[in-house]
């Protein structure tokens, strides 16, 4: 177990509502990532962080924002959820960008 907790594990929300997903780590790793997984696409990077308050965009960042005010927590926010954001969201951590990454158990989000 890599010491990563995602919450909530499942969520159903309505179109247009804000949603925040949380990733919490106990490993004190510098790098944290948010990916989404959709059928036919594998996993795609949304945003990542390389330190407290240091974040950058990934491949599919439109409609998402992130924040990292503490080493251990990385939050992913959907400001106004849309049906296209229905997906499984995974958080990952690593010591450095090129070192082994470990994934959380995922959050299944359904936007109706």
């Amino acid at each position: 177990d890599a010491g990563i907790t995602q919450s909530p594990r499942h969520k159903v929300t309505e179109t247009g509502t804000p949603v925040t997903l949380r990733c919490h780590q106990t490993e004190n790793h510098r790098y944290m990532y948010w990916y989404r997984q959709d059928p036919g696409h594998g996993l795609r990077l949304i945003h990542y962080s390389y330190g407290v308050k240091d974040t950058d965009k990934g491949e599919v960042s439109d409609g998402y924002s992130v924040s990292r005010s503490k080493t251990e927590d990385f939050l992913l926010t959907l400001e106004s959820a849309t049906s296209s954001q229905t997906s499984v969201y995974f958080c990952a951590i690593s010591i450095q960008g090129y070192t082994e990454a470990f994934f959380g158990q995922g959050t299944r989000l359904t936007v109706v």
Partner: protein
Amino acid sequence: GIQVEQSPPDLILQEGANSTLRCNFSDSVNNLQWFHQNPWGQLINLFYIPSGTKQNGRLSATTVATERYSLLYISSSQTTDSGVYFCAVDSGSEKLVFGKGTKLTVNP
């Protein structure tokens, strides 16, 4: 950005058979990982292997960085090996890029 292609996309085996999964990538890498996503959706680390060969029980992996490919070998497959196998690489951007995966079904 770097491209990652996995083959075959689908593979069906009888229990006890051996298999080889392939991952091709389009640029030099400083990180390559193999993951198994089990039927419950959990991503399990199999190998961190930017170059060379590693073995773990019935599984082994080889990455030939100069030729830009990696192979995952599964021997004496079991039904619990079923799931999707992902290859993911980093070419210096400090973030992993995933292939689309190989879906493995092992029948009893």
